Every structure is written in C-alpha cells, then in structure tokens.
C-alpha cells in the first residue's frame, strides 16, 4: 500500500535515471544513512562498533569489489585475499617510508597497487575462463602469501614479519576511538558503494555484463573483451585493495600475512554468493550474514543461559554455517539480494497480488 510508485511522475531523463527511482526507496536509504552516520556512533556500544559494524563495513567493501569481478563480469576469482594483502602492505609501506602522505592517501595508494597486481593477474582471463581462471587467481593468492612472508623489504625488515600502524589521524582529526574508526570506514564505504553502483549502471558496467552473459556475442556487437575484462579486474582490485588497507589499518591495527590467507578469499566468495551475484546491496547482505552469524551463534546460547563449551560452540558454528550456505544456495541461488527484491516486488503489489 505504502510502497508503490503511483503518482510519482518523472519529467526528465535525469529523474528517470536515479539510482533509487522510487521515492520510498530514497527515504529508506536516507534513513539508513542517517542512522549509520548519526545514531550508530552516538548510541552503539564500543563492542558493537568495533567488533561488528567496522568489520561488516570493510568486508562489504571488499565484497563489492569482488562482486564487480565475479558477479558483474563473470570472471571467477579466489585470490581476493591476496589483493587485500597487497592493499594493506602497500599502504603500510607508503606510510612507513614516506610518512608525509596523509592517511587517506596511503589507503588509496594501497588500492592503486592492488589494481596493478590485479591487472597483472587478470591478464590470463583474456585467454582462459571459468574454473581455469579461478585456479590462476589462486596462484595470485599463493604468490602474494609467499612474497609477504619471505621478502623482508615489504615488512620493513620487521624481525617477526608482523607490522603495525601507529596512532591514526586523518585531516587533522584523530581516528582512534571505535566511533571515529567506524565513521572513517563508513565514509569510505558509502563513497565507494555509490561509485560502484554508478559504474555498473553505466556504459562500462553494461560491457562487463555483456561479457559475463556471453563474451562471443559481446565481441560481435563491438565490445572489446580485453578492455572490459581488464577494467573489471582493475576496478575490482582497487576496491579490494582499499578494503584490505582498511582491514589492516582500522580493524586489526597489526597484522601478518595470515590475516589475508586463502580463508579470507573463500570468505569473500561466500559473501558474494550468499549475498547475491551481481548486486551491490547483496554484498552488504552477504557481509552482514558472514559477520553476524558467528557472533550470534556464539552468543545466543549465553542469552538463554545455556553454558556451551567453547569448542562445541565453535564446531556447531561450522556445521550451521555449512548447512545454511547449502540451504541458501538451494532455496535461493541468486542470494539474499534476490530475496530482498522479491520482497520489494511483493510489497508493490500488496494487497492485490496478481
């Protein structure tokens, strides 16, 4: 009844091409942003901000990056952890060696380096696809893990191979309390999500999707696969690299290559699959699922006063996680984003479904 575009007339192309053409959607998004920017930092506990919202946002950003590659351009990658690591270590190296570079600059430079590495490892995609490509991106994962473990230069000759960031400031403001860190990450994520949304709606996004749907047909109608595939790798790696830098700088503060191992790559892939391939909002849903579920599964027995041994809880978590992934893929292979849009469709028809 409420969620319906009746009476909302567009009188210009501009108005018709908005990201959220329906007024109610815009209000909801504005409301969410208002809550995220104002209410959450003021009201949420430090634990919630630091241990749940911040990792959720950063993983969402990485998932958007991966989604551009896998969901929009159809190039399967299981090396996203590597690109996160490149972003993190490149940013850190700039910070250590040229401390004059401001924090945001360091993080973006991390993204730039991840882009370079991403494009290099994207070159095989011009010749091979599908599972074979997945395996070459896996090579990226192993290579990067090896490089950051063994090449002492990248860790500034730190004896243990562990690196950590000093107290952070951006634009003269401290980024140290959980709320400050959260807002800092949030700004990044909002800007990048908007950027991604506009990219995938634009000409380049359509080229990616054409390649995804059928590359031969796309080539026939004049899309250059080289350009489309490599830009997808570049943009995706940039996003993932920035997310990696944020994960290292803001969430962990101190890290080793293990923080970006194959498990991280698979986690991102699961986020994208569960959230919804080819959907920006799906990346957020997937990340929320991934971050919240373990925390919930650990805490829920406590709320009901059940004392569950931590190892049992951990094993149950793995089982439930696996089962839920299988369940979701059977019930809704297009992910949570598809469920969301079905829900919206139903609301638009309600109460007179036809």
């Amino acid at each position, binding site marked *: 009844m409420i969620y319906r575009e009746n009476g909302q007339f567009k009188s210009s192309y501009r108005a018709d091409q908005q990201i959220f053409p329906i007024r109610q959607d815009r209000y909801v998004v504005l409301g969410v942003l208002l809550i995220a920017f104002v209410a959450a930092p003021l009201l949420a506990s*430090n634990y919630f901000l630091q241990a749940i919202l911040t990792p959720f946002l950063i993983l969402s950003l990485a998932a958007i990056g991966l989604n551009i590659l896998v969901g929009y351009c159809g190039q399967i990658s299981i090396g996203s952890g590597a690109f996160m690591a490149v972003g993190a270590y490149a940013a850190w190296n700039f910070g*250590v060696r040229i401390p004059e570079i401001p924090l945001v600059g360091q993080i973006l430079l991390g993204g730039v380096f991840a882009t370079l590495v991403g494009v290099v490892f994207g070159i095989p995609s011009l010749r091979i696809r599908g599972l074979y490509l997945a395996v070459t991106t896996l090579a990226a994962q192993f290579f990067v893990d090896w490089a950051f473990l063994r090449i002492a230069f990248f860790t500034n000759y730190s004896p243990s191979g562990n690196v*950590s960031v000093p107290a952070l400031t951006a634009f003269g403001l401290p980024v140290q309390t959980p709320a400050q860190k959260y807002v800092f990450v949030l700004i990044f994520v909002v800007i990048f999500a908007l950027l991604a949304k506009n990219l995938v709606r634009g000409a380049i996004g359509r080229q990616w999707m054409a390649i995804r749907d059928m590359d031969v047909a796309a080539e026939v109608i004049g899309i250059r696969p080289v350009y489309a595939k490599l830009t997808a790798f570049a943009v995706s790696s940039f996003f993932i690299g920035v997310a990696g830098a944020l994960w290292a700088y803001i969430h962990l503060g*101190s*890290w080793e290559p293990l923080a970006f191992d194959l498990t991280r790559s698979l986690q991102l892939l699961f986020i994208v699959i569960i959230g919804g391939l080819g959907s920006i909002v799906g990346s957020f849903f997937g990340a929320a699922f991934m971050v919240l579920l373990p925390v919930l599964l650990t805490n829920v027995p406590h709320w009901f006063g059940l004392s569950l041994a931590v190892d049992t809880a951990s094993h149950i978590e793995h089982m439930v996680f696996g089962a839920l992934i299988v369940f979701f893929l059977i019930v809704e292979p297009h992910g949570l984003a598809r469920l969301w849009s079905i829900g919206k469709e139903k609301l638009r028809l309600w109460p007179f479904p036809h």
Partner: protein
Amino acid sequence: MLTMSTAALAAEEQYIPLLTYRTGSFAPLGIPWADGKLDYLALVNERDGGVNGVKLVYEECETAYATDRGVECYERMKGKGGGASGFDTQSTGITFALTDKAFVDGIPIETMGYGLSHSVNGSVFEWNFPLLGTYWTAADVMIQDIAKQVGQDKLKDQRIALVYHDSPYGKEPIALLQARAKAEGFKLDLYPVTAPGVEQKSTWLQVRKNRPDFILLWSAGIMTPTAIREAQAVGYPRDKIYGIWWAASESDVADLGAAAKGYKGITIHNSAEDGPVHEAVKAMHAKGKGAENGDKYVGSLAHTRGMMISMMQVEAIRTAQEKFGKGKHMTPEQVRWGFENLNLDEARLKELGFEGIMRPVKTSCSNHMGDDWARIVQWNGNKFEVVSDWYQSDKSFVDPLVKEMSAKYAAEKKITPRTCEG
C-alpha cells in the same frame, strides 16, 4: 539505585577473560593449556574462596588462533565485570594486535613465555607482561645447552638450523640467533615451513643435504609431530633437535612413541615436574569441579603451564589488593600494578603448591619479564625427563636486542618511555 547495587555486587568479583583455542590446527596444545588455565582459577575459587574473598569470574572465548577472532573476543570481554583483569592471548598474532589496543584501553596483556620479546622493556610496554621468558631467552638457552654439549670453544664450528613455523611466532627467535651467530661464529641456517606445517618434505631434504649439527624447532600443533617423523625419515638424530616449549608437550610426541625418543625440548622453569598444586587440582576434580575432562591432562606440560599462567594472573590480583585494598575488586590499572610488582619468593611458591615447578620471580617497572629460568627436557619414549641444570639467558645478548627493538617500537608508535626507578 540499580547501578549502585550492580557496582556493589561487582566489587566482590574479579573478571578474568580466557582466550583459548580448542579447535583448529593447534588444538592438541590448546586444549590442555586452556584446561590448565581454567583449572587453576576454579581451584582458587573452590579451595580459597577466591582472592581474599573476591570470587573469580571467568569465561572462555574461542579464537582458533585467528587474529580477527581474538580481536572480537577482546572487544567483547575487555569491559565486562568492571574491566578485564588481563588477557593471556595464547597467540603471538593476537598479542601483536592487542598490544596496540592495550595502550589505549589500559588492559594488561599477560604473555607467559611468548608474545613480543622486546615487550620485556616495561618503560615502553607499560601494559605487556611476557613473564618468565621470551623466545629470545629460550633461543639463548638452547644455544647455551648446545655449547655445553660440544664445548664452548667448539661452538664456532657448529652448523645450527632453525626450522620454524613461518609466522610471527616462528620468526621471533631469529633476531637473537643471528646476533649470537655473529658473535660466536657458528653457522645459522633458516628453514621456514609454511603454516600449518604438514608440508615439510623439501625442508628435511635440505636438512639431509646440509646436515646441521643441531636443529632448533619453532613449531606448533601438527607441525611438531610432522617434523619429528620427517627427521626420522631422513635419518636425522632426534636428540639433536630442540623444540621450543610450545612444541614440547606430551601431545606433540605421545603418538610417536619411540620415533620421538630422544627429542629434546625446553621448559619454562621446571614445569615438567609435579607439585602439591597438582594434588589439589586432582582433589577438586574428584568433587566434579574444574575442567570438563577432569584429570585427563593434569600433570602434562601444557596443562601445568596453563596453571602457571593463571597463577601469575591471580598473584597479580593479590599483589594489587595488598596495595589497593584487600577483598576489593581491582581495576585493570590496579592489576597492572600487581603484575609489575610481583614478588614470588621460595616461601610463597611453597604456599601456592608450585615448589619444584618454578623458581622465584620478581618483576619491576623496567623488567616486565621477571626472572627467566629454563631447563631442557628429553622425551624417553613415555614421558619427558629433565636432563639439564637451570639456565638463565645471557643478558649480554638479550638486553641490547630488547633495548634496540623496544626503542624502535617506541619511535614508530610515538611513545615516550616512562622513567623507571627499578
């Protein structure tokens, strides 16, 4: 009114978070270790009614050795019960991540026998306590034992290999070993093994080729038995291998039996021995209290070490209470003071039931490790036997490194070191 009553209630309780890993590739070590920590806290509650009447409230959080899980646990637990009394992170990676946070939050980080070796310097690392020994002291003691075996004058002819878990944990001793190799002229080979360490074929082929005289093994979990089996496969004598204390617990060698016979390890203090505290824990288990598995791990090295960790934590709280008021809840800041002013002499250890298990230890503002003592144990096929005298690390190697690395850390993090009187 409501907040008043909760505050009053909290005053009689002391919250101790327990980060543990009972799952993942290090679980065989993590389970007895975690049980040991838990058992001692349960014992203090059960036998003594807490610390001067203050009941200990403790809770486990499973990290599976993953840094991000550990950070989540820390964030969830640090503020509970009027502030956590200290975190034993049970992981080098988590220690690194939490060290930075501890500076901001003001929570003590207790890392008995692991963690950051340079955090011994209390004037820079106000909140870190690598009690009883670090990887640098351990590596130093191993070299001393080797020198004793071959003769100090022959040390320069030796070829010593470090086979290590390729992570911050495994890399910690390298700085010290390089310093000693440079000073004493022995040859040092470094063999990294990728985590989790089940793939070591190429490493041991190199060992077979280069034939090092001794091997220092910085492994954990599944990596240790794999290494010993590989040593057997290439015919490398097991009694030339020295495992770090986390690679030298019964769970690492029990299944290997005779294949591991001769394998040497280092222990923090004398944790290979049993003491009255073990009897007390067994008595408690008989009443159905304490860790779920009961006596299964009591007396094993990892379990004893877990108990020692909890004991130091409890003694820090007790020491703090002596200054700030007995029978009261201690804030993290006060517990930190307790950690910094620990003084466990022979008599006190006897009271606690730890006689024969460890030697007296005293911490100070500038020395957050206290006294480091270590011994070598050897697996005889059935149990670990103490085979060496007490060793203490050579300060002329360890101290300059601590000074150099902690100064570097302070400069990187823009920390102004405190001035310490002691």
